[in-house]
């Protein structure tokens, strides 16, 4: 297993740095569309730094799970991010696991997040956990099926290999299977990152929350890890979407600094475009009723199944 420690370190830092920036950008752009100046894009950093400096209040009923969960949530998201090619193919930890391990790691984080929500014995945390596990349970098959479509084309579940395959055949970008799978994952992205129309990241109503309800008891450092982990997870899913489906500009293994710079520029541009899409969806939609969310996600599943079918038909 050839680990490139510099590459590994760089991607870790990039993940940690870019993730809050991305959340901040979405928040800032949303504010602009709401006719206000809004926070600056790097506000999320300042928030995390602030939480790291704050003391913590631990709920009395909580067990060791409560202390354990933030680390698992944070680290699993980070590790998943190291399996996705960000600037360079292959990703630093390509061999540690591909798409399946990525989904598995995100699920691991979610598992502990949900336990962390249940631990303090508050009804809100349980509410968040219950909803989160429900939504993710119906989001996961759609995500998997959509990934399968690409994986089958590439003959590999290795994300780097998938990106390489997509890159080598420009035609694939307009392949109907590809487009449908992209749409499916985009819907899953909205659900998994707690965006409108599934969850409202800006809500202050404890009864309607999903993601934040599980964090209600967390404070200080743990909260920072949780929030940071959530933003890394969002970045990972978005990177998956832009770099596996549109690996334009992604540098090769032996790329020089120039190619890497170009790769970074292309990556940033693609991410911003995706952010814009998320912002538009969030601005123009209301949140769905909780029991309409499965309809949305089963639509994603059907899209992914159609992608598969179209592969069957067009090959």
């Amino acid at each position: 297993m050839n680990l490139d420690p510099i590459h590994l370190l760089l991607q870790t830092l990039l993940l940690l740095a870019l993730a809050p920036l991305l959340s901040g950008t979405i928040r800032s752009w949303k504010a602009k569309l709401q006719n206000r100046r809004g926070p600056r894009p790097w506000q999320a950093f300042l928030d995390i730094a602030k939480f790291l400096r704050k003391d913590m209040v631990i709920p009395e009923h909580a067990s060791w799970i409560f202390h354990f969960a933030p680390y698992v949530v944070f680290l699993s998201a980070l590790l998943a991010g190291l399996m996705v090619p960000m600037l360079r193919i292959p990703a630093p930890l390509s061999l540690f696991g591909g798409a399946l391990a990525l989904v598995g790691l995100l699920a691991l984080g979610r598992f502990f997040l949900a336990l962390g929500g249940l631990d303090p014995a508050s009804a809100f945390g349980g509410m968040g956990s219950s909803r989160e596990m429900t939504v993710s349970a119906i989001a996961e098959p759609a995500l998997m099926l959509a990934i399968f479509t690409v994986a089958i084309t590439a003959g590999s579940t290795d994300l780097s290999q998938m990106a390489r395959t997509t890159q080598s055949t420009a035609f694939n970008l307009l392949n109907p299977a590809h487009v449908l799978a992209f749409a499916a994952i985009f819907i899953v992205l909205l659900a998994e990152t707690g965006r409108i129309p599934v969850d409202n990241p800006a809500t202050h109503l404890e009864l309607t929350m999903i993601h934040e309800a599980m964090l209600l008891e967390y404070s200080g450092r743990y909260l920072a890890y949780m929030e940071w982990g959530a933003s890394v997870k969002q970045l990972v899913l978005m990177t998956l979407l832009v770099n596996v489906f549109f690996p334009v500009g992604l540098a090769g293994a032996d790329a020089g600094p120039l190619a890497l710079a170009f790769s970074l520029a292309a990556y940033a541009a693609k991410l911003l475009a995706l952010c814009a899409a998320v912002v538009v969806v969030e601005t123009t939609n209301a949140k769905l009723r909780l029991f309409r969310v499965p309809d949305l996600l089963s639509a994603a599943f059907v899209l992914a199944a159609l992608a598969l079918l179209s592969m069957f038909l067009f090959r």
Partner: protein
Amino acid sequence: MFGILGKSLSTGIVTTKYPAAPPKVSIRARGRPEIDWTQWKDARPAAAACPTGAISFQDAGGHRTARFDLAQCIFCGLCADADPAIRMTNRVECAARDRASLISAARYKLGDDGAHRQLVPGPAPVATEPARPPAPAVSSPLESIGRQIQQRSRLIFGRSLHIREVDAGSCNGCEIEIAGLNSPVYDIERFGIHFVASPRHADMLLVTGPVTRNMELALRKTYDATPEPRCVVAVGACGCGGGIFGVNYATRGPVDAVIPVDVYVPGCPPNPHALLHGILRAIHREQWGRI
């Protein structure tokens, strides 16, 4: 979808420039009253007209200590109607760090008819009100209100602040204006300030209302649930000084009777600019021109 985006884009950004620009307040707005202390002939009509006791006086030994407590003032202007020496201004930024600085007072020599004869120069004794018992220490052994904590909070909250609003008995007037801070016009988020759902996430408690007996425990528990360092801003005449309700069988009066308060924001209810000013003052940012 395009309709929504079109409307948003055509409306543009409507956020005020405050605090870089002065607050936009109508000239007719009633802000803090100003008393022309030298020309004030008689405190009695104004004190009688004041519904909350913000204007009061004490006569002793041929002297009168007249006292104006901004914290209790509801900006109704009845005193200005009653006394020409009092004038309502439209100044709304009145937040203060300590309770005493909201009180202004003067000593007069008394005439035979009970009117003032002349102003006695020098600072008047402010603490005419019986000292309130200090707020009981709330659970946390770590809490020591000292310079260290102050500096720590200055370091921490300068760029990011999370607020938990607690209505401890207000009439909902303050809540309307506080909710207005989230509107695109005042947009408190541009300062990196958010309102949050859980006190665990909060750095600041924004407390309104005369604390009712029924909310006393809830307020204490909220304070307790907030991790240190934390600060408390008392909002409104009721929160700062008890307001028109004062202390009675059902209320404990001002917020600082229950938990320690760092900044007082007078007003009934305070103008959103005043609230912004108070919140920014609490995190030492009120002087920053650019945000």
